[in-house]
């Protein structure tokens, strides 16, 4: 008998569809209370770092260059006090097959799907991950379907997302494009149910294990070229995969004192599910519209428990504006001779400012670059912004930036200034949401729950107790 494919019926079967499409029963990791066994989930991949490196090296992924950005370092030092201005490096992840660090996630997920005997893979993504999965599926001989949120109700597409669709098709994937709205998940599930394909979710442990090699390489390359561990690693942050995987890799390499900084573009005030605001932003990822919800509620994803847990690994959380990222993208091309980004340069813009707080002998690593292409470039983005009525001008981003209304290009590099986000507020929000979602009264927290919440937020018992107003 054919299954009913209406919205309610498909969503009602979500858990079963997911279980079939992931080959993993998340129930095993649940405690029945607030806590779940995160490390058991990560270990369920059964791949060691060595095995992942081998999988990736067979498909053009990993071992990317670590570039020292000497001119940008020199430029930053002009705005720092004497003796300050860390050496800025960038991991040139654009060198991966498909042009971004997302290939690390995809290589592992697709290899796993193939091992389990799936005929195809699917991913719900409007970002570089689509091209990464499509590219890996092409190499490993699987079918691929990418589901994108791409257009507003007039059928106008964000140039960056349109380019990503083109790339997916170039790698042989089918691309299903939708207008704005969270019901994308329904289309995604429905197609997954029909095809029986593997859910190459951005949030699966296979994907995150794939990023650990990035952190590990950063540590090894710093030791080789600079003779020391990185002092700070800055990661563009949205769903949290980059910072989770990179930090885990850095820890596996034995770096004890590397500060992990999450950086996101401040899009405060823009609603991510708003049809009319969809095309009033000039970046489609790495912004607070995704980063804040995912940071404070990591399981807000297409799997029962996300392997991306930003707050477990983040020491500092900073924001930067669209205009500063655009300026820094142009500076990267003009002073370093490499065209990358723009969205992936969020961390670079923040790093330019953060470097000025660190002494000259400190090593600061930006964890990624990404490929540039038609649509995925500052010029079409600013053209698109102007056509959508966004004001573009030089000024002081810290004072004038209004997401959705303007883009303020810093009037000189001295006006590129990260803003410190209140990470403790995110931590408190995460703790409260975790209790609320599991329906557990804070007074009934088990010892395991307490340990879990401390680990989830990189805090201590006193912090968790204070947040939940426990004695």
């Amino acid at each position, binding site marked *: 008998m054919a299954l009913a494919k209406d919205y309610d019926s498909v969503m009602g079967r979500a858990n079963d569809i997911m279980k079939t499409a992931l080959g993993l029963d998340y129930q095993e990791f649940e405690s029945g209370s607030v806590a779940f066994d995160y490390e058991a989930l990560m270990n369920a991949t059964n791949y060691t770092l060595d095995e992942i490196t081998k999988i990736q090296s067979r498909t053009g992924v990993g071992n990317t260059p670590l570039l020292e950005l000497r001119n940008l370092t020199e430029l930053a030092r002009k705005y720092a006090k004497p003796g300050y201005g860390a050496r800025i490096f960038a991991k040139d992840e654009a060198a991966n097959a498909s042009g971004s660090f997302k290939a690390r996630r995809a290589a592992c997920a697709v290899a796993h799907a193939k091992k389990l005997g799936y005929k195809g893979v699917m991913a719900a993504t409007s970002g570089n991950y689509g091209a990464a999965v499509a590219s890996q599926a092409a190499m490993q001989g699987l079918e691929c379907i990418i589901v994108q949120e791409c257009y507003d109700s007039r059928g106008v597409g964000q140039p960056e997302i349109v380019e990503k669709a*083109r790339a997916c098709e170039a790698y042989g994937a089918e691309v299903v494009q939708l207008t704005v709205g969270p019901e994308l998940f329904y289309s995604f599930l429905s197609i997954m149910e*029909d095809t029986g394909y593997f859910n190459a979710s951005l949030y699966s442990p296979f994907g995150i294990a794939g990023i650990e090699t990035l952190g590990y390489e950063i540590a090894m390359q710093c030791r080789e070229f600079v003779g020391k561990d990185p002092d700070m690693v800055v990661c563009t942050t949205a769903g949290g995969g980059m910072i989770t995987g990179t930090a885990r890799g850095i820890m596996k390499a034995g770096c004890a004192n590397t500060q992990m900084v999450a950086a996101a573009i401040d899009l405060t005030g823009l609603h991510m599910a708003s049809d009319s605001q969809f095309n009033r932003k000039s970046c489609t990822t790495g912004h607070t519209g995704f980063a804040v919800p995912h940071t404070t509620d990591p399981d807000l994803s297409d799997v029962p428990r996300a392997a991306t847990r930003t707050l477990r690994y983040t020491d500092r959380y900073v924001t930067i504006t669209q205009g500063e990222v655009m300026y820094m993208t142009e500076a990267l091309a003009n002073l370093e001779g490499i065209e990358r980004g723009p969205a992936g340069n969020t961390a670079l813009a923040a790093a330019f400012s953060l470097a000025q707080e660190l002494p000259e002998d400190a090593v600061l690593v930006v964890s990624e670059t990404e490929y540039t292409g038609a649509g995925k470039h500052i010029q079409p983005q600013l053209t698109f912004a102007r056509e959508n009525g966004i004001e573009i001008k030089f000024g002081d981003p810290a004072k004038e930036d209004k997401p959705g209304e303007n883009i303020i290009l810093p009037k000189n590099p001295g006006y590129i200034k990260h803003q410190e986000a209140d990470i403790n507020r995110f931590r408190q929000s995460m703790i409260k949401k975790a209790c609320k979602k599991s329906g557990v009264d804070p007074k009934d927290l088990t010892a395991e729950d307490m340990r879990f919440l401390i680990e989830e937020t990189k805090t201590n018992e006193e912090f968790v107790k204070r947040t939940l107003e426990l004695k």
Partner: protein
Amino acid sequence: MAKRGDWVRIHSIVLKAAERTARLPEDTQKCDLQQWTKGFLQDESANIGEKVTVKTAANRMVKGTLIEEGPYYTHSYGKFVPEFIEIDRQLREIMFGGDK
């Protein structure tokens, strides 16, 4: 007119505005959830605007309204943005224009 086997783009409505039950901002609530995909036309022939079936790159059979034959991309490197020229000049001045 598109013929069987031609590569085409189709459009469909996944959910009508009234059927959307997710928590949505007011403006999105008023819009249908629309979907596009591409594939090889399975019908003998069809004109733009007609209901058709296509076989996609992943070999799925999908129904929808034919909207484009031989679909292609038009996204680009954008128009002239004078601000970038100004940024370039400023950066070179700061870096190589001597100490000021």
